[in-house]
């Protein structure tokens, strides 16, 4: 396919998303200037977690809910942390892509055993793989620092006058990467391959019977989602300046799963909506942080009972209900004008 063919075959929805992104970018760039340093750091963490949930959502499109996503992100984080704290430190950019690549490679290796499983067994097998990886972070002390982790990871060198040592500067870096990933993944989601992945998830036997390579269409999103997790892991290691095996445990993993349940995964914006909700909850109740996991859990149960399909379904229903009203109004007013 040539670039011209790619552009002409681009779905309208992607063009709208692209225009929307271009319009929103100046607002997102201006946003940290209206915030205190604390809220700037919340914004960076939200952007990092957005990258994580975008990657997670790609995995869910093939029909499985992975529990190794955060541990896989750890591979990106450890790659960056180890290589940037050497006596002769590596370039951040090299470690960023290498970390993402290693995360993808790990996913490709474990894909063979874990993608043979389905439903709960997939969840459990990825949980086991993630836990094994986290144990490796603890046990390979000479490389990973074991339970002490790795501290004082430097931030990347700035460019174009942007200092990544400041929270705002680092936010721009994360924002740029998040927007690129968002556009690429959205285009992928709308592509023939993206739609085929969902078709395989909906009915694997039927897909296989018409000649679709179901194994490939399940492996691809699993690896792609893990690569995205690797990017997020590497960036979070740089932002926090310290990593530890406990950072890649079940707390963040639960947050991602909860974001996917609360927001829903049938649309691209669902998990991001869920993440926004959970982050808002966390910040509103920040004076009672110990209660936040309880509220997250209650939200998951409430969504499952009241709004199965997540917040995205509520938004979609609202849009569907508003569309004829707005459309009729526009139609009526144009009819009056004609009259």
């Amino acid at each position: 396919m040539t670039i011209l063919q790619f552009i002409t075959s681009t779905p309208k929805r992607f063009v709208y998303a692209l225009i929307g992104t271009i319009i929103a970018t100046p607002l997102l760039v201006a946003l940290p200037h209206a915030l205190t340093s604390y809220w700037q750091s919340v914004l960076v963490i939200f952007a990092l977690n957005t990258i994580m949930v975008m990657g997670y959502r790609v995995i869910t499109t093939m029909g499985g809910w992975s529990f190794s996503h955060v541990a896989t992100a750890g591979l990106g984080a450890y790659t960056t942390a180890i290589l940037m704290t050497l006596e002769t430190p590596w370039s951040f950019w090299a470690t960023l892509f290498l970390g993402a690549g290693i995360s993808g490679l790990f996913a490709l290796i474990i894909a063979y055993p874990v993608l043979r499983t389905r439903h709960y067994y997939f969840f459990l097998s990825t949980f086991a793989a993630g836990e094994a990886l986290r144990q490796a972070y603890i046990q390979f002390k000479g490389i990973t620092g074991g339970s002490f982790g790795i501290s004082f990871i430097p931030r990347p060198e700035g460019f174009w006058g942007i200092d990544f040592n400041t929270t705002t500067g680092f936010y721009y870096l994360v924002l740029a990467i998040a927007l690129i990933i968002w556009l690429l993944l959205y285009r992928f989601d709308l592509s023939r391959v993206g739609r085929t992945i969902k078709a395989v998830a909906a009915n694997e036997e039927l897909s296989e019977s018409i000649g679709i390579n179901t194994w490939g269409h399940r492996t691809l999103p699993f690896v792609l989602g893990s690569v995205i997790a690797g990017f997020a892991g590497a960036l979070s290691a740089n932002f926090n300046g310290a990593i530890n095996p406990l950072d890649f445990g079940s707390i963040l993993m639960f947050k991602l799963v909860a974001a996917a349940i609360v927001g829903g995964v049938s649309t691209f914006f669902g998990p991001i909506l869920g993440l926004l909700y959970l982050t808002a909850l966390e910040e509103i109740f920040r004076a009672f942080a110990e209660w936040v996991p309880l509220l997250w859990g209650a939200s998951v149960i409430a969504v499952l009972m009241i709004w199965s399909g997540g917040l995205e379904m509520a938004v979609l229903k609202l849009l569907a209900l508003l569309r004829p009203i707005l459309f009729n109004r526009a139609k009526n007013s144009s009819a009056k004008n004609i009259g």
Partner: protein
Amino acid sequence: MNVSKLMGRIIPSVVGAAALLVASTAMDNKQASAAETLDVGAIQPLAGDCAQWGIPIVRGMQYWADQLNADGGLLAGDGKRYKINLKTYDNVCYIPGEELKAGRKAILDDNIKFMLQTFTPGSRQAIAQMTTDNHVLTTSYGAGYLSKDHPYLNGGITGSPAAYMLIASRAIDANPDVKRVAIITSDQSFGLAAKAYFEAGVAAHPEVEIVYNESYAPDATKDMLGLLTPLMASKPDMVCQLGWVPAQYASAIETMEQMGFKGVHCAEGFTFPMILERVPAEQLAGRTYFGYAFEASEPTFSAKGHELYKWYVEEYGVEEWSPYTPIGYASMMTLEAGIRMSPSIDSKVVMETLYAADVVDHPLFGPSKWGGEEIYGANHHLLTPLPIYNLDADGNVVLDHVVDHAAWWEKHKDVALPRIDAGGQVFR
């Protein structure tokens, strides 16, 4: 579903969230408007298993604040009195990433300038740069990690992990029959630090051999028999242990006693109300060596400190007493001493005043010197004397000995330092 039904669900949720936001903002404004108030932060685990450590520590800090506030506030070196307002932040279970998250809330959101955190090296390192950049004088019940590059971190008392070295050494001194020592700690950052310091304490006694020296994953504590069987197979005369939450200490000691152990137990602290429900006091009498800051239930070391115990028992009941309560209380007194000495309440001036003092007159421990140069490259660890305790046959805690930390270190550092270094705990 129609629009009105849908809006009927959405609007109450939005109104509720907005009300909560307004309420929390109003609370913040109310606190900000109070004059001559000094906000002090505490980052500790406040939920889950580790809250068995965190909550008693925070209660000890609250007692410290309440005592000062009852006197009209802390009289600072600038001649003004400051009411202490304690704010708490959850680090889940000393997880460095959560420590950083809590640190951001405390430092960037609440503008805290004086704070207490864990000694856990990974957690101290996680917020080291932020405390330096924002001039937040952060103390702890021990050192763990200190650096001349991060002068705002200090060790407020001997505490962890140095105390482990002194306890192991004292227990061997007091029990010449001890020739074989077993060490068991959790495989978390604080547990591995403890392991290195227990080894350092044993190293001061060349005639004693370490026969078992392992770490465990916290999940393994669910099978205490499986965990302790290989340890007991090494036939130790003394077991130095760290990382159990208080209820697990009780379970571990009960298991070892059931397996026929007759030797010495050594640890930072034992929560005896839990332990004595399982093992009779007369069986453990004279065999449990421990010390962290000081044990407030024992009245002879510090009458002032014993008042903490009386208050705690009245407030929460004797069965809730925890040896961890005094450590937050004692550590805050180092900051208190600094604020009293400093000509200004500015955290940078308080820090410089504290380090400039050759000797700090600690309200509980008396005159104490700064140390830590050989381990941390900076003398930012206040070497307070360490009282070590034991249990008598009536179930009372009795004072065994008070170790002069500075003197012990001068005498044994040549053998202790290499073990601390081998354990990855030297940060020069």
